[in-house]
């Protein structure tokens, strides 16, 4: 047997090594070929991906200096990183700088890119993989761009960090793509993929690596004849006229307000305003872009969103090992098991999916196509993923699996009997994982021969859109099992959060008091729409009552009862009507009726609900949010999670906890811990001991 799998990829990586290093620069490699083309490769030192910062751009400036003494025929810019051209600016670099320093840094960047844009020689950016933010801004400053087909993705995600493009991206994108397309890309932060780059004028050619040379040659010829300049259509030019800007900007603002209200997220409005006022004049727009950008970097929203971004990186950096899991066996093809299976298959793993019945397995296979299409997968990629998802009604997959995930109903007896049947069949080094959300792992571990292999991998519903998975260890879980579970989660594009086996783990422990308190408020006669509205206005992605319906009232009830049984801290009583609803089968979204009536996956609300007065709003918000913060303090005290950063990250990415507030602990700190405790004490006096401030506040 020869080891010739992935031969193409291996040969390609050999090809990349052809760019010789002159050793002149830390982050760049430069070489001049026989036809006097200067190839400039970005290869950021000690990093898997390219990012831009002052040092990288300074070095690039030095490269441009060198052109003057010995001008090349053209300059070709590309990346040596397999994953992409450039992921954008290093967002962390602004954290410790004041406004003047940031302005100076940005100003320097603008001068460098202006130099690049104004070079006498033709310049070509060759982009592959991700070309985002600052990376795209560099590419846009070149005269031509060639996209390499594959996983090409380009865009400006700055808006998600409470910013907009700041290195000339705003006006250069307007000139390339027309204002409507450009503004949409910048306001939504979503990328253009593959052929979309061609239609949006972002690349001149989209080719395979093997045709790069031909494409470069053609562009350089056209540069001489001057035939290649792409112009915007008259309708695109019209859309950028002064009156059109006044009208369109109003619509853009309204759309932005719906998804990211300006009082929490100032960036979209700043971007629209920038365009509305200066969109007709490049020079003024360049100045205004810098001013606006610098101002936004100073807003709390942006600082918090940037912090959230680095918290995310922090979660991924906690993964220390390479993923060795290639084949996964999943037991239980219900909503969770089926979606986990489809997700893993789409991420390239071999999956066997077992269930006593074939119908749920078939349903999981049926859902894979839609899931893949929403992730920009081609028909062939989807078919290959479907091939990797092996229906396994007889459960043969256990022996070959590196990881077995049990995702059967939350019943201790069913789970233990399955674990005991599976354990003797596991291959050496395989891990046994449970997707339980409420059963303490210790209970499952005691009956196993080798409990060190047991770990919790707790996915959230819906699997495809929830980024966080909780990696739950019990006392006896081995470090290697935990690390492999983390590495596996990262490999399938999830954010693993290591937590200790604790009632509700982290996320459900923190979320349940919030949901229960909402139910109590409802009992006290508050309008359901109003309760949800207060939470949304605080910055939650949806209100607690809608969320309870979404999760399923049965599951909320299970978790609430479990927490009441297992926790020392006082919990709110589950209202009788909720038990009644569960008994009647009114479980929420999945049955069409819960607290709300659901149609086509949407809660049927009576408008936005009444406008609360300031007092009600504050009281309601405190009663919803503070118990959640209190539970977070408890989890911190119990060391459920390794630190406040991971806690903040987990709550943001698992529950959507108002990202612009930087996470629950960070938010509490910004309010002042003493204030939070005091307010909790007041609430305890008024509403009962469930609000007693946790001892954990003293440790923070």
């Amino acid at each position, binding site marked *: *047997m*020869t*080891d*010739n*799998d*992935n*031969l193409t990829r291996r040969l390609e990586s050999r090809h990349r090594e052809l760019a010789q290093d002159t050793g002149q620069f830390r982050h760049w490699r430069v070489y001049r070929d026989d036809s006097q083309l200067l190839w400039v490769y970005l290869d950021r030192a000690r990093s898997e991906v390219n990012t831009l910062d002052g040092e990288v751009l300074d070095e690039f400036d030095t490269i441009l200096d060198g052109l003057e003494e010995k001008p090349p025929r053209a300059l070709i810019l590309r990346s040596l990183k397999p994953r992409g051209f450039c992921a954008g600016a290093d967002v962390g670099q602004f954290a410790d700088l004041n406004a003047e320093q940031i302005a100076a840094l940005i100003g320097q960047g603008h001068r460098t890119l202006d130099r690049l844009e104004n070079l006498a020689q033709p310049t070509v950016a060759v982009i592959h993989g991700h070309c985002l933010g600052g990376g795209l801004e560099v590419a846009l400053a070149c005269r031509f761009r060639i996209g390499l087909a594959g996983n090409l993705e380009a865009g400006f995600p700055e808006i998600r960090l409470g910013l907009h493009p700041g290195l000339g991206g705003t006006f250069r994108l307007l000139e390339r793509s027309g204002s409507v397309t450009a503004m949409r890309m910048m306001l939504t932060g979503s990328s253009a993929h593959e052929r979309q780059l061609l239609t949006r004028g972002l690349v001149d050619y989209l080719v395979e690596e093997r045709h790069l040379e031909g494409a470069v040659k053609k562009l350089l010829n056209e540069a001489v004849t001057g035939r290649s300049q792409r112009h915007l259509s008259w309708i695109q030019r019209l859309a950028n006229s002064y009156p059109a800007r006044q009208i369109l900007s109003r619509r853009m603002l309204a759309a932005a307000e719906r998804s990211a209200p300006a009082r929490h997220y100032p960036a979209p409005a700043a971007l629209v305003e920038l365009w509305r006022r200066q969109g007709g004049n490049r020079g003024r727009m360049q100045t205004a872009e810098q001013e606006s950008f610098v101002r936004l970097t100073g807003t709390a929203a942006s600082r918090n969103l940037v912090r959230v971004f680095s918290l995310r990186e922090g979660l991924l950096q906690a993964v220390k090992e390479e993923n060795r899991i290639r084949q996964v066996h999943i037991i239980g093809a219900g909503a969770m098991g089926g979606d986990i299976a489809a997700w893993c298959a789409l991420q390239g793993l*071999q999956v*066997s999916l077992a269930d006593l019945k*074939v*119908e749920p*397995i*078939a*349903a999981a*296979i*049926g*859902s*894979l*196509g839609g899931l893949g299409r929403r992730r920009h997968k081609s028909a062939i990629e989807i*078919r*290959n993923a*479907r*091939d*990797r998802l*092996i*229906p*396994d*009604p*007889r459960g*043969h*997959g256990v*022996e*070959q699996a590196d990881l077995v995930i049990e995702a059967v109903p939350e019943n201790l007896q069913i789970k233990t009997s399955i674990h005991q049947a599976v354990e003797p069949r596991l291959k050496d080094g395989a891990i046994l994982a449970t997707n339980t959300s409420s059963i303490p792992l210790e209970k499952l571990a005691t009956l196993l021969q080798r409990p060190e292999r047991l770990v919790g991998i707790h996915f959230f519903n819906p699997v495809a859109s929830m980024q966080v998975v909780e990696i739950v260890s019990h006392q006896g879980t081995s470090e290697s099992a935990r690390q492999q579970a983390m590495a596996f989660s990262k490999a399938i594009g999830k954010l693993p959060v290591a937590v200790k086996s604790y009632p509700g783990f982290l996320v459900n422990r923190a979320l349940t008091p919030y949901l229960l308190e909402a139910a109590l408020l409802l009992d006290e006669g508050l309008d359901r729409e109003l309760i949800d509205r207060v939470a949304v206005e605080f910055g939650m992605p949806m209100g607690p009552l809608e969320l309870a319906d979404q999760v399923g009232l049965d599951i909320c009830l299970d978790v609430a009862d479990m927490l009441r049984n297992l926790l020392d801290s006082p919990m709110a009583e589950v209202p009788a009507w909720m038990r009644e609803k569960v008994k009647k089968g009114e479980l929420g979204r999945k049955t069409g009726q819960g607290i709300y009536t659901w149609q086509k996956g949407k809660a049927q609300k009576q408008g936005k609900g009444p406008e609360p007065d300031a007092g009600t709003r504050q009281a309601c918000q405190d009663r919803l949010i503070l118990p959640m913060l209190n539970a977070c303090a408890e989890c911190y005290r119990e060391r459920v999670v390794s630190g406040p950063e991971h806690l903040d990250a987990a709550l943001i990415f698992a529950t959507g906890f108002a990202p612009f507030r930087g996470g629950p602990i960070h938010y509490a700190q910004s309010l002042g811990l003493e204030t939070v405790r005091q307010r909790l004490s007041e609430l305890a006096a008024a509403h009962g001991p469930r609000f007693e401030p946790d001892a954990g506040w003293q440790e923070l």
Partner: protein
Amino acid sequence: MSNSTHSAPQDSKAQPVYLVDGARTPFIKARGRPGPFTPVDLAVQCGRPLLLRQPLPRSVFDMVILGCVNVVSEEMNPARVAALRLGMGDGMPAFTVQINCGSGMQSIDTAFRYIRSGDADLILAGGAEALSHAPLLFRQQAVNWFAELAAARSASGRLRALAGFRPSYLKPVIGLERGLTDPVVAMNMGQTAEQLAHLFNISREQADAYAARSQQRLHQAQQDEVFEREIEPAFAADGKVYTYDDGVRPDSSVERLARLKPAFEPPFGRVTAGNSSQITDGACWVILASEKAVEHHGLQPIARILDSEWAALDPAVMGLGPVLSSTPILQRHALALGDIDLWEINEAFAAQVLACLRAWNDRDFCQSILKLEQAAGQLDEDILNVHGGAIGVGHPVGTSGNRIVLHLANALRLLNKKRGIATECIGGGQGGAMLLERV
């Protein structure tokens, strides 16, 4: 008379060849439009669970061989496409074999010969066919018209070419019909069965009775869960699941069958849709291993393949292929018809199977054609196609040979019998046979 290629079982260097395991999809009846699976889709559907239950990594096979007659244009060399889609690795050699209705057995036979000679240890051999995907073809005149149009260089030339169009060009040719018609004797397969019914004096009633019994045996076998390990459910992309051979007619009876009109030679013919095999989609794989592979991977074979034979004859009576290919095997091993414990004769047509039985029991035929001293005798129908055959299960042409070998192995184990022969007639005038022994 027949020429034959036979193996040399007495060769002292011959390595024993084991049939380790196998699985197939349910055979899905063609319902007038392309079914949910292409040939390779089908091969992947049953190949995955089969490989999953083996105690060995899927990359350790030496090669993959697949029989397939109606290859679809997206899947040239379906064996290789299947091997890749089954995740057997970039380095897996794979080729497709085609001998019409014998293709699924030819893949096993090719693997058998590789392993017996010591050239390979572990081979995945299968058959796959999606008759519902057989193409509609353009008429030859229409193809010529297209070619002229494309070649026309000037506007007037193009106009002239355009004017040559005739509405009849739009009438498609059904590829399947073509494929089931012998191009040498110009008879379709059903007509060859009519010919045999005539030559061996088989009545419509006899053929219908055989067909009804075949359906009942299949139905009973399904009730008894005989196919528990043999059939793996097939899951379509739209979330639909297929679990059993849906050509089964539990309500089939001689009376009901009598109502059908002759399908090929009305009004006097005896072959109907009811006493013929059904047009279906399906795939099947078996794993063949050498002694060395069995020991090394701790495999538990079901059966040993002892011998195989191919024979050829007048295409107009291709249905006698089983007689011409099985008899030499019996002779080589000095076995009588009755020494075989189980028979699988592929049921292309009820009349054709009955003709085979009558031929063996016909002294003149046995003496003059088979060169036996006397009639081979009466084959006991109780040990023939004990769990039904292609009349109920269906006959995806490139798959059937594979299915009957696998089912024979499984049935030998289930019924605790020793020896069995699986054999089939092959359109174009051939026959294939294989002798198995339970391990």
